């Protein structure tokens, strides 16, 4: 399907150039099977990735009025998909993403991280400054845009052509991440959900 939106950022132009090289190369060498895996951001407790570090911040800044829809690939599925693709290569690009999608607010609730909404022009600079102090580092290229608009991709090729069934869907990947990552928390014991639970007398 043809591109509908203009490429705006450096990162988008770079990626599109890469895909252009890939296209040309695979067209000129039809005897080679060229398979391109397009990964959605990966998530896992031990990973040194800007987005994982962002989600591990004790207080997570978010962009006021935006709630991106994300698909985060569980680390096991990321390697699993790569392995499946080497065993069962297909031609052309394949999106590596879990089924379903999850919004950032939902992620933060599952991971029990308090969030701070900031007006979106302030988000990037704040994250950079906060990141340097707390060890999260600035987000790569288009991370800030990703955390404003989100992204959902079609992962049917991964399932039907490479025959890789993801072990974790979008929600399960985040649940697993939340359960296994300790991270730093400023308000360890407090969560509004707990207080309401107590009020409702619900026991989990």
């Amino acid at each position, binding site marked *: 399907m043809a591109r509908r939106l203009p490429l705006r950022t450096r990162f988008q132009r770079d990626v599109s150039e890469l895909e252009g090289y890939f296209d040309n190369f695979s067209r000129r060498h039809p005897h080679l099977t060229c398979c391109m895996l397009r990964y959605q951001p990966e998530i896992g407790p031990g990973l040194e990735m800007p987005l994982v570090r962002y989600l591990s911040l004790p207080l997570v800044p978010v962009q006021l009025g935006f709630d991106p829809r994300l698909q985060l690939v569980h680390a096991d599925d990321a390697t699993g998909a790569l392995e499946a693709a080497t065993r069962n290569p297909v031609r052309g690009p394949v999106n590596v993403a879990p089924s379903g999608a999850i919004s950032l607010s939902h992620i933060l609730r599952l991971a029990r991280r308090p969030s701070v909404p900031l007006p979106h022009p302030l988000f990037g600079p704040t994250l950079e400054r906060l990141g340097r102090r707390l060890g999260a580092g600035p987000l790569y290229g288009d991370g800030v845009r990703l955390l404003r608009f989100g992204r959902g991709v079609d992962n049917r090729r991964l399932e039907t052509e490479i025959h890789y069934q993801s072990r974790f869907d979008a929600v399960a990947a985040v649940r697993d991440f939340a359960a296994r990552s300790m991270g730093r928390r400023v308000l360890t014991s407090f969560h509004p*959900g707990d207080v309401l639970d107590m009020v409702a007398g619900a026991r989990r």
Partner: protein
Amino acid sequence: MSAQPRAAEAGPAEGADAPSVAAIADFLRRMRNGIEDGLDPTTAARRATDELPRALRDAVDRISRRLRGEYHEDEWGFDEEFAEAVYPFFEFLYEVWWRVEAEEVRNVPSHGRALLVANHAGALFPFDASMILGAIMKEHPLPRWARFMVLDWAFVLPFVSVFVRRVGGVSANPHNAIRLLEQDELVMAFPEGAKGTGKPFSERYRLQRFGRGGFVEIAVRTGAPIVPVAVVGSEEIYPKLGDATQIARAIGAPFVPITPTFPWLGALGLIPLPSKWRIEFCEPIDLSGYGPDAVGDRRLLFEISEQVRETIQRKLYENLIKRGSAFL
């Protein structure tokens, strides 16, 4: 003397709210007693809840579940709980504000895929999708949520983007529409797009060009029936008198309308005028007979597109006459 009947009228409405208010007061009193007896706040709170009425406990439980993230969103970001929570507001618009009359809702299939195609209007905020949705939810014997195609630009706006997505809006492009239909969803499309919402008030109810008939191609490819929908009343909610082209270009909007109230009254100008609405669902057009080869037949696609367009235009005129005065 004159104050008495009014008090009697207000009685039942207050009565409905009174139990929960009393229950909260009761809860706070019991909690204070508990703390005075030397209990720590959490134990006191837990004891005080034991006597709360069931409905209130359920409500609290629901909110706490929400805050813990125990809810479901589908891959498009549609959140049924959220949609149900905001539904009463749209119900108010539907019943009281616009007094919508819906006809032939049974033409919407109660299960399986279908593409609803409607005229598009309402310069500042096109409410037509929400009212069609309301008509299906309220009047259809088997109500179901429909997804609607939304101009990309809406997803750039803070708050609007989140809201639209959670109630079932999907960025308008053929890929998304095909995938939704393959998932057997009910999909609403507005082929006029921004040309329909951005037309001046003097051209109301005159259908604009239906794109390049892409919606027919989508329907043929997925074998979904097309249900034309004519919406009358949406044109009067924000009468567009002018266009602030410069501002629109600066913020990247398709157009910035000037209405009698917007932007002169600021946020108040966003309140839509209470016009009277009629929504008619026409006979579904079954395209499953054409088969996949028809996708390449531009001429056929264009003919079907024109047929849908003419149906909607005819129904618009019919319903304009049936409606009579626009506001009363």
